């Protein structure tokens, strides 16, 4: 069936103005989600993970949500610590995590001949992790990282989000309409005329 637009055909200039359009959702597999909330503890040694596993976990958290220019290592360490603390409190989770990290390393050896943390190309590391993205342990780490970054009030300003505004009287006097690259909206008089004509 044809789709018609009430817009003129594309000129060369328009084609040059085309944006990159993306539909990011790629696969649909049944998922595990956890809402593990974060404690703000520092990266510490763990009773359940070996040193090598801890290092892998830290690398994994960074590869899941890489923001190398925006986040500090300490942000990722806090997330890895939360994952380890959760695992320490739950035997099944600990087993899932340690087995999972071992499987990642085994797959890394199989595909790249080195442990996961020694793969240099970030795309290759992401590609490796994609093999595990439907596993419970992976999604557990992923959602912990999600909450630790995107639901973390300390991180919000780094990503340009200001959070709660009611206590500051909203944005009415704080830039709700302050951009300059497009025209201003109608004035109050114009908006009144629009509804009273």
């Amino acid at each position, binding site marked *: 069936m044809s789709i*018609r637009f009430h817009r003129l055909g594309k000129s060369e200039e328009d084609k040059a103005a085309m*944006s990159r359009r993306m539909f*990011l959702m790629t696969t649909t597999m049944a998922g595990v989600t956890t809402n593990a909330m974060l404690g703000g503890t520092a990266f510490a040694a763990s009773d359940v993970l070996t040193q090598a596993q801890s290092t892998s976990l830290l690398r994994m958290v960074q590869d899941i*949500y890489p923001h190398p220019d925006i986040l500090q290592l300490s942000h990722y360490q806090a997330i890895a610590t939360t994952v380890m603390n959760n695992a320490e409190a739950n035997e099944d989770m600990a087993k899932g995590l340690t087995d999972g990290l071992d499987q990642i390393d085994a797959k890394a050896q199989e595909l790249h001949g080195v442990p996961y943390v020694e793969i240099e190309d970030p795309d290759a590391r992401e590609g490796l992790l994609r093999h595990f993205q439907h596993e419970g342990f992976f999604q557990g780490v992923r959602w912990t*990282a*999600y909450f630790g970054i*995107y639901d973390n009030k300390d991180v919000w300003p780094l990503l340009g989000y200001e959070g709660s505004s009611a206590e500051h009287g909203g944005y009415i006097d704080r830039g709700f309409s302050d951009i300059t690259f497009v025209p201003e909206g109608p004035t109050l008089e114009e*908006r009144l005329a*629009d*509804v009273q004509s």
Partner: protein
Amino acid sequence: MTQFDLNDDSVVVIIGSGAGGGTLANELAQKGIKSVVLEAGKRFDLSDIENDEWAMFQKISWLDKRYSGGGWHGAVNHPTLPAWIVKGYGGSTIHWAGVALLFKDFEFKTRTNYGAIEGANVEDWPIDLEEMTPWYEKAELKMGVTGKTTGMPHLPWNNGFRVLAEGCRRTGRSDYRSGPMAINSVDRDDRPACQQIGFCMQGCAIGAKWSTMYTELPRAEDTGKCEIRTDAMVLKIEHDETGKASAVVYADKDGNQFRQKARVVCVAGNSIESPRMLLNSASSMFPDGLANSSGQVGKNYMNHTTGGVYAVLPEKVHMYRGTSVAGVVGDEVYHDPARGFSGGYYLEFLSLGLPFMAAFLEPGNTGWGRSVTRALEGYDRMSGVWVLGEDLAQERNAITLHDSEVDQHGLPVPIISKTPHNNDYEMTAHMYETTAQIYESVGATDVYELPAYPATHNMGTNRMHADPTKGVVNAYGQSHDIDNLFVSDGSQFTSSAACNPTLTIVALAIRQAEYIAQEMNAQNI
């Protein structure tokens, strides 16, 4: 506060305190008609409102067990969250964004205007725009909707909407404005003007946006004619030997059960729980559930054909500053089969906070990695829309009961099935293309297309029809089978139209209150 006796069989029992139930309760109360509102959730007030997306979601959402089914992506990516609905005093009018659009004339008569569509179950409403216009006006005045009826100007334009509006202008569109919204742009009706706080969908912290939580419900209680019981989950509607509704059985938060007698029962639990209640109330006289001689209870579930589009602009936008849905584009709301689909759609500017953007940009297991973080690093340069269009009724899209799993009250868990029609795929492609063109005209560098969110607009599962074999209720929301049983929420909708449903739900509730009063006076019910 007024209290009615459980054995008082002169009261109207209203189930649910949201847009439909809350409005109906206040309208009846103002006419002196006694009612008991049973609300499954807690009592909330303005002090419960926080500017925090997940905190509010956790605090007020309906999180009882539910399953997503059918062919939409949510059956996999949102397996236990088919819909986003509030459980509490005020219902989903706490979360709602405030867009208050009315149906177009052709949208009431979809069967006549679209014809029979293969795979769909499209029908005409037994009412039309002319009949509804005075009720829409009453609803606009009640809710305080910006626009001609109230004379309240539409809201000032925020950054995110200014970008969208400029794109509309550059692509030759003309129908884009910052309303109609049920949000005060000036102080009105004892509520303040909007302060551009944002977080409208987490509840308006100052009450500038209409919600039954601080308008209809307390006003109904103030008359002394209405008792609102919270933490009161209705399990079953009972009937007498003549087949009339006679009582409602509910459980309090500790699981203690009570039976409230009733003269009239009005169901307003939103379009998943309302049919579920009717199905769960099956008896030997009504083995398929109450009011279900047509077999249409729970069928024809509609939740709009939707998606999201977020564009990254060359400069900062800070779209989260100010009203969450700051403007509406109506140019695409017309029916022209040459577009490849029936019905029309709106583009509504919608800001998401960073937490929700990061969760919904790419929902499901795959939403991580460099493509996601790269997109999120453009968060403060984004403007975007929620696109929503007509969703055709289909019998297979339905609320059904799980055959073995039960919830905390022992009731079968509902399964909410939604499989898009070809019409939806055609329309969605058109929506994405149109929106991308608009944003490209203002210099967007990246445009992200998001799949449907868990449904916020839920409709059609107890639909109106003039013919009792094709619908559950008549033109007043009165069930065809049981005269004193009414449906008072969006489950009455025969078609979804392109627009957000709440203004129509409120208009129908005001009209229904008038009808109930008349029928009670005439001793017909």
